[in-house]
């Protein structure tokens, strides 16, 4: 039966496009479905919320996309994010509260150091995987524990608070503030308007959305149009062939894990901007597993060689819309785990049935 479906898909260009982008089609149908079942689901405010709350998950999934295409897996990204978040938080806290530094200088220093620090977990996992042939699962599982321990040590088990107020204005702000009759203002409420009146303004395009878009376009370009991306696919497709065609595979694998770790670091710093505190990652967060799920739902294969950035992003939003829609529709929250699980299984089945699609 599958054979006939396969040939049917092969013949029709439209069907092929639909099948290739089934996750996106699912996303659209969920949006339509929840628009009927959930009051307030279909609104700019809700969609902006979904995007805003998905920023970290999207960053995690893009980080995981590179690793999975190369045939590996990175389990440490969730805790690398926590490490980056508490490091940035701690530095900002110390500098800001010392009174010697302006908020801007403190924030910038904290962010830069946290980002620089986030290169190391990836560097270490990468060296273990590329040079010492440690399986990626084990190498990054080791880093999973190490980064978590260091993060908890830095913050002593409590979120790092007492940071400048401007932080959340950046992370939670909007590009446009609109009020009919009162005009528009960019990046913040008009002067003289208090925060108590913020709800009377229509807020459009979260800063986080712009920020996310820039990062996604850069990473998409890196994967799609550069030698780096091409070699990532080649290594995932046939590592031996990559070695023999002269690609420095070891170096490339290290670069991939450094990149993945760095993106997790960006997520950590962004987390500080979004929440206004430095958060360690809790054990129950499972960022890495949801990232892997999103990437696989987006059509990547854990065997490597397959995957696209925006397909992984679709995977994230499919999960996010599902959770949000079920919640708004009044479904018990337990069902969301079942739904995500079913989606994941469906993705694998589709991948196995139609291997030539992607």
């Amino acid at each position, binding site marked *: 039966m599958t054979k006939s479906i396969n040939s049917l898909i092969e013949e029709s260009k439209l069907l092929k496009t639909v099948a290739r982008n089934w996750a996106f089609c699912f996303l659209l149908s969920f949006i339509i479905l929840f628009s009927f079942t959930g009051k307030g689901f279909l609104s700019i405010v809700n969609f902006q919320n979904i995007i805003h709350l998905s920023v970290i998950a999207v960053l995690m999934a893009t980080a995981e996309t590179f690793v999975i295409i190369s045939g590996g897996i990175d389990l440490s990204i969730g805790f690398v994010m926590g490490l980056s978040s508490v490091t940035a938080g701690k530095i900002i806290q110390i500098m800001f509260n010392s009174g010697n530094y302006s908020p801007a200088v403190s924030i910038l220093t904290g962010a830069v150091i946290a980002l620089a620090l986030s290169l190391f977990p990836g560097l270490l996992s990468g060296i273990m995987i590329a040079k010492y042939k440690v399986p990626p699962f084990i190498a990054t599982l080791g880093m999973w524990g190490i980064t978590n321990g260091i993060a908890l040590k830095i913050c002593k088990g409590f979120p790092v608070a007492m940071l400048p107020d401007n932080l959340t204005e950046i992370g939670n702000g909007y590009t446009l503030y609109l009020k009919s009759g009162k005009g528009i203002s960019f990046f913040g409420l008009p002067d003289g308007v208090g925060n108590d009146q913020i709800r009377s303004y229509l807020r459009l395009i979260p800063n986080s959305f712009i920020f996310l878009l820039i990062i996604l376009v850069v990473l998409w370009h890196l994967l799609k149009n550069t030698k780096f991306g091409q070699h990532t696919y080649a290594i995932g497709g046939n590592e031996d062939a990559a070695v*023999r065609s*002269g690609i420095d595979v070891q170096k490339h694998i290290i670069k991939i894990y450094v990149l993945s770790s760095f993106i997790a670091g960006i997520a950590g710093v962004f987390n500080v901007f979004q929440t206004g505190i430095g958060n360690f990652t809790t054990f129950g967060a499972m960022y890495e597993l949801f990232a892997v799920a999103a990437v696989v739902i987006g059509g990547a294969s854990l065997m490597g060689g397959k995957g696209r950035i925006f397909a992984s992003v679709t995977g994230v939003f499919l999960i996010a819309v599902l959770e949000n829609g079920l919640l708004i529709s009044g479904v018990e929250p337990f069902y969301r785990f079942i739904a995500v699980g079913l989606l994941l299984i469906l993705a694998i089945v589709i991948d196995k049935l139609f291997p030539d699609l992607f």
Partner: protein
Amino acid sequence: MSYLIETKNITKRFGGLVAVDKMSFGVKEGEVVAVLGDNGAGKSTLIKMISGVYTADGGSVFYNGSEAIIHTPMDALAMGIETIYQDLALAENLNVYSNIFLGREKTKKKFGIFPVLDHEFMYDESTKILNKLDVKIPSLKNNVRTLSGGQRQAVAISRSIYWNAKVLIMDEPTAALGVAQQKQVLDLVNSLKDHGIAIILISHQMRDVFAVADRIIVMRRGMKVGDLIKKETSTEEVVNLIVGSEMVS
């Protein structure tokens, strides 16, 4: 005419096992030399030392009369020594032209700064080389996964020729192919010979070897036990050398 590529007393050990033992042989331009031997005779190890996958423990490789330092596959490629392995070393998840340019992708500058892959250039160049070798492939934008065994072989050979192979090492080129495809590949080998390329052919197929080779080298237990001109030898003689029965008789 002197040898284009030559090994002198080249040796490779894996622990206590001597895989290739003081092996010397050479290939001239436009010559096809077949290396024959039973499984484990050391054929693959021998060619891997020439192609840079293994580093020799002793002896040396000469290219064009001077000693060649080959430590990595890149060193060999830079000299024009290309290898086509049994598994072809193609990335099946990439398309035809990406495979031809794998590891040596052509880039162009976008906005004058960002280097991006130049797909058009790679596509056009790949089309040219495939046409030159008279290879038919449905679309160069198809993934290699969708191609037949003979087409894959042709892609691998085209890749080598495009990158100016002077020495082409082929490991069991016809092993996984149907009869018609085998003939295609052998025809391709003959035309490469006319282009003046030195070819080292590793094969089990006696028929193929006698169809295209000029000389036949027989290896047994890491050593060279025969260096024969094809026209002056016979299948029986070669088989006897491979299995070592001439010692018994």
